[in-house]
C-alpha cells in the first residue's frame, strides 16, 4: 500500500499545529491586554488642565488635605471644587492659557472634568477615612504622588493586592504622624513597630479579611 502521509506532509502537519498553538496563546495575551482596565499601571494620565501633583506637593508644598479635604472624615477623599483652585489662581498665573479651563469653569459654573486614575468596581466599598485614621499612608496605595507631574496608578488595586495588606497590615502601618508623608519608607524593624501599631490602633485582624469589609 502507499503511504498515507509523506514525510514532508507530516512535517507540514506538525508545523501547522505549532502555528495554531502559537496563535492561540497570542490571542489570549492580546485579549487580556485589550480588556485590561484603563488607565494602565504606571502610565501617566493627561488631564485638562494638566494638573501636576509634583508641582503642588513638592514645589509649592501643599498638604494632601488642602484639596482632598474629606479624606480623614469621609469615605471619599474628595476632589477640590474649582473655587479651591481659585483661592490661589485668582492671583497666581492668572493669564496662563494652561489655567484657562479652571477660570472658565469658575466663570460659567461648569465643573471641571478630571479623568479618573484610581477606580474600584461598583461592588467594592472603600472608605478613605478609616484607612487614614488607622495609619495607612497615602503613598502606600497611591505611590509617590509628589513625584508625579501627571498622576498615574502605581498599584493593581485588585482584590489580591488589597488582601496583601489586610492579611499582614503590620508590614504597612505607619505612625499617625507619617500618614501624609510621601517619602516614608518602611524602617528595618517595621514588623515589630507594625505590631505595636496594630494594638495601638485597636485593629481587629479577624475582621480585616471578612467579605463584608468591602462588599455589601
Amino acid at each position, binding site marked *: *500500500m502507499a503511504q498515507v502521509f509523506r514525510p514532508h506532509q507530516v512535517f507540514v502537519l506538525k508545523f501547522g499545529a505549532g502555528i495554531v498553538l502559537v496563535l492561540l496563546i497570542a490571542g489570549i495575551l492580546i485579549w487580556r491586554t485589550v480588556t485590561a482596565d484603563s488607565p494602565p499601571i504606571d502610565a501617566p494620565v493627561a488631564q485638562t488642565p494638566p494638573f501636576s501633583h509634583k508641582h503642588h506637593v513638592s514645589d509649592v508644598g501643599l498638604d494632601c488635605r488642602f484639596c482632598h479635604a474629606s479624606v480623614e472624615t469621609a469615605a471619599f477623599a474628595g476632589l477640590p471644587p474649582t473655587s479651591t483652585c481659585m483661592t490661589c489662581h485668582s492671583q497666581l498665573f492668572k493669564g496662563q492659557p494652561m489655567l484657562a479651563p479652571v477660570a472658565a469653569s469658575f466663570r460659567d459654573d461648569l465643573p471641571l472634568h478630571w479623568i479618573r486614575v484610581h477606580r474600584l468596581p461598583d461592588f467594592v466599598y472603600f472608605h478613605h477615612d478609616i484607612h487614614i485614621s488607622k495609619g495607612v499612608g497615602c503613598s502606600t496605595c497611591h505611590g509617590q504622588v509628589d513625584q508625579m507631574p501627571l498622576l498615574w496608578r502605581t498599584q*493593581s488595586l*485588585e482584590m*489580591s493586592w488589597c488582601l496583601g495588606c489586610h492579611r499582614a497590615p503590620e508590614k504597612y502601618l505607619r505612625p499617625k504622624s507619617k500618614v501624609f508623608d510621601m517619602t516614608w519608607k518602611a524602617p528595618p524593624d517595621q514588623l515589630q513597630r507594625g505590631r505595636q501599631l496594630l494594638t495601638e490602633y485597636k485593629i481587629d485582624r479577624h475582621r480585616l479579611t471578612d467579605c463584608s469589609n468591602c462588599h455589601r
Partner: protein
Amino acid sequence: MSSVAISEIHGDSPPAHEPVLPGVHSYESISEKICGIVLGARTARWWLIAFAVCSALTVLFFGSIGYLFYRGVGIWGLNVPVVWAFDITNYVWWIAIAMSGTFISAALHLTRQPWGASISRFAEAMTVFALAIAGMFPILHLGRPWFFYWLTPYPNMMSLWPQWRSPLVWDFFAILAYLLLSLMFWYLGLIPDFATLRDRALTRGRQVIYGLLALGWRGEARHWHRRQSAQLLLAGLAVPLVVSVHSVVGLDFATGNTPGWHSTIFPPFFVAGAMFSGFAMAMTIVILLRRAFDLGNFITERHLDNLAKLILAMGLVLAYSYVMEIFMAWYSADRYEIYTALNRMRGPYAPVYWALIFCVVLVPQALWSRRVRRAPWLLFAISIVINIGMWLERFMLIVTSEHRDFLPSAWGMFYPTIWDWAILIGSIGFFGWLLLLFVRFVPVISMSEMRELLAHQGHAHASHTHERGGA
C-alpha cells in the same frame, strides 16, 4: 489478556451453549461488514430523515440556550422555593444514561464476557455523548453561566478558591474525571479500527481523516500489548469512578437538608438508578442499531437477553430503594420527612409519582418472561417506558422535595414553561444527532475485538479436536 481468556471461555461455555458469533465469519468478512457501514458509498434514507429531524432539534437546543443566556434562567418556570427543576432533572437523567456505557464495557472487559465485545463500542459512544450533554446542564442552570470556571481552583486576582465542601465542587471534579476517562477509553478502543478504515478507505479525504485519527497505528505486537493492558487498567479504574460519580450526584441532594433529599440512602440509590436507566438507554440504541444495520449476527438475542436481565435486576434494586425511602421517612419520625413522603403520594404532584412507579417498578416486571426478553420490539418499548419513568423519577425527587419544605408560608408550585420543554427535547435531539454521526462515520462494533472472538472460537474448536486426537 483476552487471549488468556480462551481457556476460560472454553471452560464456562459448554458446547450446548450457543456461540457469541453464530454464522460463518472470516477476519475479512468482519472488516467487510463493519467497514461497509462506514465506507459504504450511499447513505440510507432512514439515516437522512433521522438526521434531518435531529438536526432541527439540535438547532432548537442551541437556540434555546442562546435565549437562556440572553434573558437568564427566569425563562424557565423556576421560583423560590422551587429553584431547581427541569435543569437539574435533565442533568441527573443524562448523567445516569451516561453511566451504562463505560460501566458496561468496563465491567464486561473485567469479567471477560465475550458477548460484551459487540455492544461495548457504542455503549461507550453513548456514554461520551450523554456525558457531554449532562455536563452542559450544571453550566446552563447557573444564574451567571459565564462565571462557571470559578469552580476550578486556579490562582486568581481575587485570591479566592472554590468552597471545597460544596457537593457542586465534587460534582465538577467527578464529571471532569468521568468525561476524560470515557473519552480516552473509547478512543483507545477506536484506534485500530481507524487504522482498518484508513487502509480500506477508497477516497484520499477519508484516508487522511482516518489516518490522522489512527495516529499511524500499524498493529505492532507491543502496541497491541500496551493498548490491552491500558484498557484493562482503565476498565479497572472506570468501575469505581463511575460508582463514585453517581454517588456524588446523589450527594448533591443528600448533603442538602431539604426533606426528601437528606438521606444516606441516596448515593447507592442513585448508582442503581443510573445503571437502570443506562442499561435501558443502551437497550434502546442496541435494538435500533441492530435493526438499522441488520447486525443480528453480531448483536444476538443472547445480548438482548443478558441486557434485559440486568435491567430487571436493577429495577428490583430501585423498587427496593423506593420502599426504603418511605420506610426511612416513617422510621425517622421526622415530621418533615413524613410529610414529604405523603405529599409525594397525595400532593399536587401525585400523578408524577404514580406514573413513575408504573414505569419504573411495574413495567420492568414483564422481563421475568423469557419470551419478552427475546422479543426485540417489546424490549424496545419497555426500555423507552423506563427512560421516561426515570426522567419522571428525578423530577419527582427534586420538585416534590423543594416545593413544600419546612415553613408552610414558603410553599409553592412549579409549572414548566415552553423553554423548559424546548431544552429537554432539544437535548434529546442533540444526543440523537451525535449518535447518527457516530454510526455513520465510526465503526459501531469493535472489529479488533470481533477478530479476537473469532480467533478464540477457532482456537476452542481446534483444541477440542486436538484433545480427541490425543486420546
